[in-house]
């Protein structure tokens, strides 16, 4: 076992429908060696369907799946060499922890001494050494999760799939196990495809996020890019908080765009966006924390009235309203004291590079 263990996954035009219901529209996706890719989306977005097809547990209606360049679409699950961590762990209740972890090696008819050594290693990585002889229903949720992880990695699979593995745990445990999964990923260098509907989990763990909605892939990008440059209203809305302001393009130039917020007498600058011309109806997306209080004498500010203010200690959350009724969420960081009372008037500013312009198709949706 000296050759490179981690493998690339390629998905070509995979689709799945049940009768007339489309569970996953035609999807293409490439996962690099050693990458941690997260399928993120609301329930019903098709992420688990995609995962189950990669695992070989759901038969695709069309398309191919390649692992290491080899077409595995027609291979049964047992011959794909993929480790799967199921939502509710799917641990075998009639076997001990050690027997559960040894199961994949037994199925591969590995020699007993090799199996014992591999099980010991996997249990050590998952910090389960002391529980080896226990039955799985005597374990806490977090421990069961570790067993599921150990069982999925012990046979050094080409690919590890995880289906909402932290969904059943409380927040504290979830945070611990997130760290654990990150550590295991770095330590083993495995390629991981991870399903979740929790954006924090996705942001923290992933090299790239594949955002899905309504049986389609919406956007595939690294977390920061997905956050800072969403390409659709859904992406902007799903990940973090955002202000989505209807606007019209007033002018375009090499330096950027000038937008007028619909219903307001306010114009703001935005970064250049190709394919837009004067008069286009667009959405201006501004993250609440990118809005700031304007400095004295600053040009192009947005006058607003504070309607509500929450002091969270170090963070101030404001609701503000523009003259024409447009509502804004503003998050101010690092202010010493209450900056503005409800009812007071303020001037807000935003850098052109922090205004993401979503084209006419986003307005329509």
């Amino acid at each position: 076992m000296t050759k490179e263990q981690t493998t690339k996954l390629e998905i070509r035009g995979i689709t799945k429908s049940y009768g007339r219901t489309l569970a996953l529209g035609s999807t293409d996706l490439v996962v690099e060696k050693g990458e941690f890719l997260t399928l993120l989306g609301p329930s019903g977005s098709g992420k688990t369907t995609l995962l189950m097809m990669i695992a070989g547990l759901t038969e695709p209606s069309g398309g191919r799946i390649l692992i290491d360049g080899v077409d595995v679409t027609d291979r049964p699950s047992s011959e794909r060499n993929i480790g799967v961590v199921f939502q509710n762990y799917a641990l075998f209740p009639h076997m001990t922890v050690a027997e559960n972890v040894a199961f994949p090696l037994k199925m591969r008819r590995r020699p007993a001494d090799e199996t014992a050594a591999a099980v010991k290693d996997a249990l050590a990585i998952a910090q389960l050494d002391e529980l080896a002889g226990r039955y799985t229903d005597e374990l806490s949720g977090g421990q069961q999760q570790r067993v599921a992880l150990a069982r999925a990695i012990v046979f050094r699979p080409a690919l590890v799939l995880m289906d909402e593995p932290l969904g059943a745990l409380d927040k504290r445990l979830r945070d611990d196990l997130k760290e654990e999964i990150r550590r295991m990923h770095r330590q083993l260098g495995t390629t991981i495809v991870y399903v979740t509907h929790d954006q924090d989990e996705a942001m923290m763990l992933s090299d790239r996020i594949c955002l899905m909605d309504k049986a389609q892939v919406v956007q595939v990008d690294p977390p920061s890019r997905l956050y800072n440059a969403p390409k659709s209203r859904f992406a902007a809305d799903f990940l973090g908080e955002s202000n989505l302001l209807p606007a019209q393009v007033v002018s375009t130039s090499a330096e950027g765009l000038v937008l007028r917020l619909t219903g307001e007498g306010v114009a703001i600058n935005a970064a250049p966006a190709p394919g837009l011309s004067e008069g286009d109806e667009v959405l201006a997306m501004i993250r609440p924390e990118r809005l700031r209080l304007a400095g004295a004498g600053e040009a192009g500010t947005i006058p607003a009235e504070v309607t509500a203010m929450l002091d969270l200690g170090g963070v101030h959350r404001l609701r503000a309203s523009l003259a024409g009724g447009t509502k804004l969420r503003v998050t101010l960081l690092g202010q010493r004291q209450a900056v503005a009372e409800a009812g007071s008037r303020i001037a807000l500013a935003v850098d052109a590079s922090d205004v993401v312009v979503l084209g006419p198709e986003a307005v329509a949706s």
Partner: protein
Amino acid sequence: MSDLAQPAPKPRASRARRLALRNLALAAPVVLLLLPFFVYPTVSFLLRAFDTPEGQPWYANFERFFTASAYGRVLAETLIISAWVTLATVLVAYPVAYVLARAPRRSKSWWALFILLPFWSSFLVRTFALVLILGRNGPLNDAAMAIGLVDSPMNLLFSRGAVLVGMTSVMTPFAVLTMIGVFERIDRFLPPAAETLGARPSQAFFRIYLPLSMPGVTAAALLVFVTSIGFFITPALLGSRYETMIAQPIIQQVLDLGNWSFAASMCVILFVITIAVFVLYDRLVGISSLVQQGGGQRRRGGFGARLATRVFDALGDGLAALGRLMPFRGGKGRAGARAVAGFSVFVLLVLNVPVLFLLPVSVTESAFVSWPPSGFTLQWYAQFFDMPIWLQGTTRSFLVAFGTSLLCFLIGVPAAFAMLRLSGRKAAALMVLIVSPMVLPKIVIAVGLFYLYARIGLVGTEIGLVLGHTVVALPYFFISLVAVLKSYNWRLDDAAASLGASPWRVRRHITLPLISTGLISSAIFAFVVSLDELNIALFTSGGLASTLPKLMWESATVGFTPLLAAVSTMFLLFLTVVVLSGLYLGRRR
């Protein structure tokens, strides 16, 4: 529970005592009925076995039983038939339960319906249908000759094969329902999980699913065996004299010869076998897994369990190796799954279709049963309505069934509430008392009651029938009701109490309306059990107060006629309507 939210805290001790008293009061009616009409008659009758004439040892009756070779043969035949029936039933029921447990929600209700219909429809009528189908000039022989399979009719009836087929088909729905509870609790992701870890489908089944389903299998086997050894309808109608089972000489000794002591000694033997099987089961599997299904089996790594594991593993690996030799099939070859589903459909057909053959026979013009039926007439139906004895029996059956479900309701509901509040051991004792008439040979209960009634003058009375039927029907009522109550959200009662409702008003406005459909469906099942009950009437009706099943049974022992087919058809039709409404109500909660 609801009591927690009551206002005005009272001193702890007296409050606890008051609650204990209330639970006692709730459980009292059931206990007061079952002690004199189930426990006492059964025990006192069984003791008659040791009541021997002056000068003979206490074991004289048993000596007679074991020295007469005829009885030895009967006992051996009883055990052999029961063992084969158990094996066949488990093998037939397993795939059906497997498919049913894993079926998607929508098709599941259809599968369940075609298991529940034969389960609730009359044992007696279903056996009649087999008599008709397997007969020398029945449809099966007719079809075989028509396609040239055989030249002359085969003798399918009056053989051990016929008895096995008959008993297996009667026991299969029962076994499926026993297994399904365990099967449904197996995480459906376990076999796929095993497959992702490298197991072939056959290995995933034999190493994962089968071991986890074993508690259901062994429980079903136990109940089927224990029920089978008390059977007499099937061997009497489908078997020859070589297939005599032990319940038959018991009936003969009591009804024809009036030899109570000898009958009691045979009942003791039947009883001892039943207890022995339970004890053996407890040693091998653990009796607790009967009550708290799922989970009981694993830590008891006895020799049987270890051996079974070895065998299952080897079977799975062997099949997987065979699978690898097969030419590669694209995708996930699900031929196995399809075969299992196909077999299950076949089983459901065999369970449900035979009774349909009764209808054409019931309108035949010929005076005896023949296939294909000739002509069309309603004279047999007319004859039924012209014969006072049938009409009286039918009326009596309905009255008794109505009285039985009412009595079950009156004593069973408080007992079910008590059961949920009592502590573990007391609850278990109550459960055992109420449910044991279901697992003990009914014939023992029935003869015991006859023995009691003969002394207190209840033979041939409707009251006697109602009391006896209640003992038999109460387990079904109780189990069904406890299931309803267990799924009830008691927080709703707390909420109502916190909103100012008194305990009585909580019951009246919250609990009862919410459980009413479950309550009615439970009562309907008690009604059905009573309507179809034969054992009690066979002994205690004294020939004067016959019920419909007893009349049907007596008529069948003489010979199967179109009149009986007509009665059976009407009876079955009525039962089906009642059962369907019970199932419909039971599901609507």
